């Protein structure tokens, strides 16, 4: 029981009369790579938004390592250990690559630094900055972006921007990493590379990862377990092969 990282109970939200998501029950175990798939508009990103506090659920609740996080703000949830990437990339475009990651490191206990320490340039400031830089470089190394660290985020090619988002999320030292379509817009070669990185993150950091993806090869090649959503409800759950070959799922994707 204790190795369940994320548990949702009957999670749901409705906008006006529209039930965007309802009755989602997930159980994600430690170090699991968990996929969330479904056709467009199935409510996948909405689930992410619920889990990160962008929306507040109208029904149900969710727990991270047994602690209820419903009702917390985005900032609080991030500090509790859920980090995410965005479907439409949301980098800090006018900052260099390394600074994007440094922002991710902002709340780490080891890098605490009172604003007044920085204002008055006490030695603590320099110590923290140097440590943060070292750590940021380490993280960038994992996603192969160390060389690019002084480039502007907005000047990176698309695939690298996606990787930078992952690095930035990783920098917040999460227990659970939510990746929203990480392979979207990547060519097969880049996708391969990304799969390797995701596995490496899981192994190196003992990370639990929940990801949304349309690329079925990516999902089936990577995920241990999969939940299929359609019209906001769970259509199928199980191992990647089971779920994706479920006749209901095939119907939902291909139509009647």
């Amino acid at each position, binding site marked *: 029981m204790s190795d369940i990282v994320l548990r949702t109970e009957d999670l749901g*939200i*409705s*906008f*006006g*009369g529209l039930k965007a998501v309802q009755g989602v029950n997930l159980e994600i175990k430690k170090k699991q790579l968990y996929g969330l798939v479904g056709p467009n508009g199935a409510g996948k990103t909405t689930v992410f938004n619920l889990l*990160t506090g*962008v*929306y*507040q659920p*109208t029904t149900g609740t969710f727990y991270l390592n047994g602690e209820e996080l419903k009702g917390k*703000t*985005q*900032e609080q949830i*991030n*500090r509790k250990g859920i*980090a*995410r990437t*965005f479907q439409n990339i*949301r*980098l*800090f*475009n*006018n*900052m260099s690559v390394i*600074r994007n990651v*440094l*922002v*991710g*490191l*902002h*709340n780490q206990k080891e*890098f605490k*630094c009172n*604003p007044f320490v*920085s*204002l*008055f*340039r006490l*030695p603590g*400031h*320099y*110590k*923290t*900055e*140097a440590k*943060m830089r070292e750590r940021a470089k380490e993280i960038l190394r994992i996603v192969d972006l160390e060389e690019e660290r002084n480039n*502007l985020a*907005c000047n990176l090619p698309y695939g690298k921007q996606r990787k930078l988002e992952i690095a*930035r*999320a990783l*920098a*917040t030292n999460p227990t659970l990493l939510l990746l929203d379509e990480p392979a979207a817009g990547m060519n097969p070669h880049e996708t391969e590379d990304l799969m390797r990185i995701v596995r490496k993150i899981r192994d190196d950091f003992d990370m639990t990862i929940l990801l949304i993806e349309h690329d079925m090869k990516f999902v089936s090649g990577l995920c241990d377990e999969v939940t299929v959503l359609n019209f906001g409800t769970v259509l199928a759950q199980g191992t990647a092969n089971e779920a994706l070959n479920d006749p209901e799922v095939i119907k939902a994707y291909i139509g009647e």
Partner: protein
Amino acid sequence: MIKSILKSDDFKIKNCINYMVIAAALVVLVVLYNAGELKASYANLLVQIGYSIILAVSLNLVVGFLGELSLGHAGFMCVGAYLGTFISMQLSDVIESKVICLLISMLCGGLLAAIFGFLVGLPALRLKGDYLAIVTLAFGEIVRTVFKNLPWFGKAMGLTTGAVKFTKKDTPLFIIVFITVLVVLFFVQNLVRSKHGRAITAIRDNEIAAKAMGINVTFYKLFVFVIAAFFAGVAGVFYGHYTTPVMYTFFSYNYSIEILVMVVLGGMGSINGSIIAATLITVINYILQKELPGELAALKFLIYALILIGIVIFNNAPKLSPIKERLSLKVLIAKLTSKNRKPEDILNDPAHWDKIPTKIAMDEVLSTDLQPGNEYVPDKPAKGGK
């Protein structure tokens, strides 16, 4: 340890050149002054330049770095000018030295303005863009209206500050102002070049992502408003010691806009730009006032307006950018220093102000429902169910 400090960005020449330039200018001016070569008009102009720089740099924190449009900066200055100078006048009964009165009242005026900054910062948590702009404008006008009617501050007559005003016999005020400029610069640059500055610019660049990174948006927004208000209050205290009487008319929204113009012309998020623009605009105003006698005074605004429109259109019009590329001084300098950069790259440098999208992007203005305390609350499902 020392090595890491020396290696940090603070000690790169391009990051501390502004301290050196200002300090050098100050030393030269002090020498000139002591030699009797500096006219009173220039000494006074320097005071104006000094407090304009403080205002522009502090507003840049809000507009350029936090990305919130504020049209009420003169309001904070007003608080500092009235309350700070009032305190200074009370102190002058006890303390003989005007300089010490000034220093104490700078702190007090700044702190009082900071309290107002906190109050204005609160709506900033819920409002964005133009909505915040009109609230800050409203705040400035409210402050002004209240001060113009309070009997302790001379009502519409204004607060006579003759007792603490710096005269020709005192320490030249410009020296204190410019030392303060250096101190303000020290604090502002330190803030910007720290993890906190990164968090602030992250909020500007993408507030949602910043929240998802766990940045405490509430804290940083308030923090920036408070700091900026503090410095504006200090500028106000200087104003009160520079001229008498302190009158509400000076602090109208037109003045807030003038400060904003300094920030925008200097470059959003560029501190050196703000310093240069504040200096230039103050000098232009001075020259126009001095050189256009009598009937031609109305021409001043005409010229000012044309310069303003011209610069903004030239700097921003998408169609003019090829011409600008050819003429840009920046490109020229960059070409001389590094040969392998293309003009487009140099101009697309994000340090160049017109390329920084601030959150004032109008399309985002109306999306107010994601603010803390105002999370999207879906309609309750129809009761009873059909």
